[in-house]
């Protein structure tokens, strides 16, 4: 009875990541941390990174929120761990562009791997901020904010 659009938003991979998220660890020596709050729903995340020689060695986050925000944080940590900082910044911009595209730009599978499961989000304008929460936290850590 649920629509294809809804099933596109809540793909099995999204539900799985939301239930058993990756990266929910506390880092010993974080280079930077960022706390982000979505005031309309109360979703929160604190995300930390450890940078070693221009590469993100570790990502750790704690938080609570909806399926989309939790799975996005989980997929993000899998995707950027071991990635160069400069490339991560590019990846972040690509992610933001796709999320804001109202369904017109899809995430590149070669770049985003499992995280392409978040493609359905961009059709739901009110949920884009859910998917972006962890990525905004990541952006702030990269900018040293």
């Amino acid at each position, binding site marked *: *009875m*649920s*629509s294809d*659009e*809804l099933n596109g*938003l*809540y793909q099995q991979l999204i*539900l799985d990541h939301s*239930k058993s998220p990756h990266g929910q660890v506390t880092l010993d020596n974080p280079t930077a941390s960022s706390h982000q709050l979505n005031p*309309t*729903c*109360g*979703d929160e995340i604190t995300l930390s990174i450890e940078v070693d020689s221009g590469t993100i060695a570790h990502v750790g986050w704690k938080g*609570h*929120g*909806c*399926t*989309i925000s939790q799975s996005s944080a989980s997929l993000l940590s899998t995707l950027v761990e071991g990635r160069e900082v400069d490339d991560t910044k590019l990846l972040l911009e690509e992610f933001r562009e796709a999320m804001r595209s109202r369904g017109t730009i899809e995430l590149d599978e070669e770049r985003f791997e499992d995280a392409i499961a978040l493609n359905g989000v961009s059709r*739901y304008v009110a*949920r884009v901020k*859910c998917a972006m929460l962890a990525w905004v936290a990541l952006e702030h850590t990269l900018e040293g904010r």
Partner: protein
Amino acid sequence: MTTTPSTQAMLSPADVERIRGDFPILQTEVNGHPLAYLDSGATSQKPLAVLDAERDFYLRRNSAVHRGAHMLAAEATEEFENARATVAGFVGVTADEIVWTSGATEGLNLLAYALSNATFSPEHAALRLSPGDEIVVTEQEHHANLIPWQQLALRTGATLRFIPVDDDGVLRVDLIDEIITERARLVTFSHVSNVLGTINPVSEIIARARQVGAIVVLDACQSVPHLPVDLRALDVDFAVFSGHKMLGPTGVGVLYGRGPMLDALPPFLTGGSMITTVTMEGAEFLPAPQRFEAGTQRVSQAIALAAAARYLDAIGMDRIAAHGAHVGRRLLDGLDAIDGVRVIGTAGHQYDERVGLASIDVAGIHAHDLGQFLDDRGIAVRVGHHCTQPLHRRLGLTATTRASGSLYTTDDDIDRFLQGVSDARTYFGVTS
């Protein structure tokens, strides 16, 4: 006073169908499904009578009020003031006790700022708040009935205290003697909680506030649209409500002030239309309510709000309240039968003391995901903290899903919501 809804004749399904005919928006399709609008607590839909009243004003009589010598200005002024009398009568008070505001939030801020203006005015010394004075709110309050008082306390040095809630969100009325003391200058609380739907024990709180001589303020946003409310009989000093929650347009609301109290209050917004004599050095002000209505007024909105009050009156607030109690009961009974659902604020299921509203937490499903799932079926609900972060925090929650009905809510709307909540548990894999 509020009557006991369950003893009144309620709306029949045929009545509700007739009423729905007055609300064209209810025929909208959402995601391929007929709209089930269960977000009336946030804003109600508007009947044609209200839309027509506003359009008719602009078509035939649009003009500035309280100025101008021409025919349209006279007609506009008369209709604007008639609207004030209609809305005043709807809540059992007189026209000169009604101040038009943009909504309840502005009404509460107007009151809070007028009170802090008393700090600078020798003739208003009796209303002055100082360190040692206390302002009492409750832990249930909407942010609109909390933050203006936090800010007033900051500006005046007064202390903000609150009546806490228990683990189920119910006001701890047993503590009011400790919390409302001789130091209390103002006590403010909501008539009906916008999250719990419970009707608060107004008379007990007011009796205590009267004992200590505190000003009593009532947030009537969620009661005036759903229950017969007589502000005079309730014996409050001030009350606020919003037009858009009671079938009226956005941009208009009411601050009620009991005659002598309103007259004693210094102005907040100043400018045109609220003065008698103006010199380069100073100004004298009109009596209430004009003293609080500076600048061009929301004329069409006030006229449309009066049309809303007449529409509600014609159906009968007793019957609307009985329908609300029925909606509330059907929601609670249905939600109780679904595993993993916690309805907030239902201790003892006091049906007669509720309106047609329920907020729920579903184990394992975030409110936004539930709201999204329901929207996919054309069911509109509110998700989030409903502007009550402290209450949600107290109940160990960050967000809930709220279904709130009105006089146009059908059993089918409720049943589709209940089925949706149940199916969402399967969809998100949380069935036990």
